């Protein structure tokens, strides 16, 4: 079902943690709220769940205004970071709880639990207690408990962050498959950009309670709306150069180069991702500097260059073999250069 937030605000005392959030989540969409800690992403999710009151603004689920509705009447299921499994109940009773609360007939509950347990491969563990399960199995129980009552939406608060790296990759794929199969609107909170990029239909990037950009993962990566998003998404992060933009030509201390823009700004920032840079001879590249550090990652080498007092990271071949201090040029692909206004931080088109 559609979920929409209009100008939602939340204050704790005098601190406003969510500042006028507008969000429209389509039916069946997988939306990821991405942000660092303190960005307001979890608070936003808890407001949609009804676990936190809204200071101002409206929240609607499936066209129904639920701003002042108790969590249990919102028909959304939530998966917590801690899984929040009931330690004194068996796996079966944990999964059955949402139906038991609704006083469904016993036979129906049993059939539903068995069906859902099969979907998440828990059929053999229904008699166990949560403390007897591994992290991945607990995660599945939490998921099964959310799925069983076919809610209007799933809300997930960093559900994978307690798993080890290998299991996390596996569960990520499972989660995506499950959401696709069930087609239930999902809002997923994470600080992990890989999770955001791989899972989401659309990503909402939050910072200090303000929505920075809401777009598809590809657009977030390829056309970041402002300096924050440009710096936040991508690993290693985007390189930034301070300089002046005159009729589309960018001049920095380290050198000057043409861009695809025609704009003019006295204070501008040029951003370029490490993979869009190339090492070149000192006289060849658009900007020049010297090698500051090299890191062999495996299939490539990260070369950090000092160019006119600023650091530029270049993703180079694994065969890169120049030593620290050597003069170097950096070639930039004009199409891959992102331009931002220094003052507002907004992208220059």
């Amino acid at each position, binding site marked *: 079902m559609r979920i929409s937030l209009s100008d939602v605000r939340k204050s704790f005392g005098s601190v406003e943690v969510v500042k006028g959030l507008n969000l429209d989540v389509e039916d069946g969409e997988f939306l990821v709220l991405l942000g660092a800690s303190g960005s307001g992403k979890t608070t936003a999710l808890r407001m949609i769940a009804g*676990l936190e009151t809204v200071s101002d603004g409206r929240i609607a689920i499936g066209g129904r205004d639920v701003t002042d509705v108790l969590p249990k009447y919102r028909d959304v299921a939530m998966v917590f970071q801690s899984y929040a499994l*009931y330690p004194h109940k068996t796996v079966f009773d944990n999964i059955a709880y949402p139906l038991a609360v609704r006083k469904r007939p016993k036979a129906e509950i049993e059939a539903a639990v068995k069906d859902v347990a099969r979907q998440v491969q828990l059929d053999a563990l229904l008699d166990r207690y949560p403390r007897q399960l591994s992290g991945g199995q607990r995660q599945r129980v939490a998921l099964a408990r959310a799925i069983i009552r076919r809610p209007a939406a799933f809300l997930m608060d960093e559900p994978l962050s307690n798993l080890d790296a290998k299991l996390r990759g596996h569960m990520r794929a499972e989660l995506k498959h499950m959401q696709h199969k069930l087609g239930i609107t999902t809002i997923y909170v994470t600080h992990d950009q890989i999770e955001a990029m791989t899972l989401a239909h659309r990503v909402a990037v939050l910072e200090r309670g303000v929505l920075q950009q809401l777009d598809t993962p590809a657009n977030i990566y390829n056309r970041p709306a402002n300096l924050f998003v440009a710096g936040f998404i991508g690993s290693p992060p985007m390189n930034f150069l301070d300089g002046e933009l005159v009729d589309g030509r960018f001049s920095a201390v380290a050198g000057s180069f043409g861009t695809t823009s025609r704009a003019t700004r006295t204070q501008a920032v040029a951003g370029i991702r490490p993979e869009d840079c190339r090492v070149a001879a000192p006289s060849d590249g658009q900007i020049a500097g010297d090698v500051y550090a090299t890191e062999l990652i495996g299939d490539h080498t990260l070369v950090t260059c000092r160019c006119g007092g600023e650091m530029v990271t270049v993703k180079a071949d694994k065969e890169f073999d120049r030593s620290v201090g050597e003069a170097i040029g950096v070639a930039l692909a004009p199409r891959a250069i992102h331009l931002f206004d220094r003052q507002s931080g907004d992208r220059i088109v």
Partner: protein
Amino acid sequence: MRVERPSLLRRLIEPPNLETLAPIPKVATYAALIAWSLVVLMPLYWVVITSFKLPVEVDTGPYYLPFIDFRPSLDAWHYIFVDLGNDTLRPYANSVVVALASTTLAVLIGSLAAYALVRIRFKVKFASIVAFIALVIGVIVAVVELQVPWQLAVVIAIALFILSLGTIARRFRAGLGNNDIEFWIISNRIMPPVVAVLPIYIMFQQLHLLDTHIALISTYTAVNLPIVVWLTRDFFAGVPIDLEESAEMDGASKFRVFFTIALPLVRSGLVATFMLVLILAWNEYLLALFLSNANAQTMPLLVSAQNGTRGPQWWYMSVLIVIMVAPVVVVAMFLQKHIARGLLVGAVKG
């Protein structure tokens, strides 16, 4: 994940495994434990053998070993159970009824209060407290001095109180938080009960409820509530809030969350609290002395009554003490596991 607290409490309650100790500390530990056991068990032993002695043996003694020092006799037991008969059984039944009922009520109400104090943030305005006290005084003055019918006075007072909540109380900022409420609750127990005994006596006298179960049960419940609240609030605070929020999202009401999630998770703690309060109620003397007479008399009164005009009759007293202590020992043995675990809730995770 909760950070484990320093293990001092744990070390005190869970001593090192005796099996793994080196021989000399092991022997020393056992010797100390045996010596302490003798100190603890001696009075119990003495009470038990005294109950089988005749008055002459008590007076000329001390005799330590039955069958060797003296010949055990069932005289005292016969007197208590056959000659006194109902005069023993009635106080015994009274004690059982009063202790069980008041403890059940105190644990039920107290745990609900403790849960609310842990999970809900209260802001009680000073102004509404002042208004409440003023109206209580007003009702008393109106009824006693002005001869207003008490029903009328109470209705008017309640109406005025509700009115003042919305109007006067809202204008004043200063208020009390959860900590203040908790302290107020425990302060009721800090005050020695003897201070309140006379007012309580007069109150039940006016209500014509002296020497009834209701008087004892309601008084014991009120007196033990602070202990229950104070103990159980820590247990509830140890329940992760995620679990309760999750249950709420799953569709459970607040009461259902309390009864199906929070309560089962603190079961051990509640059992320990129940036992403690039950023993307090079982042994209570002072309030029972004032509030009960013949009909509602409890066991502690009967025991002390054996020290009457004929001097202390240790043999009868001992029989009564034995039958008073026995059920507590039996119950404690059955619930021992829960009690130890209950005390550890919070100190050791899940």
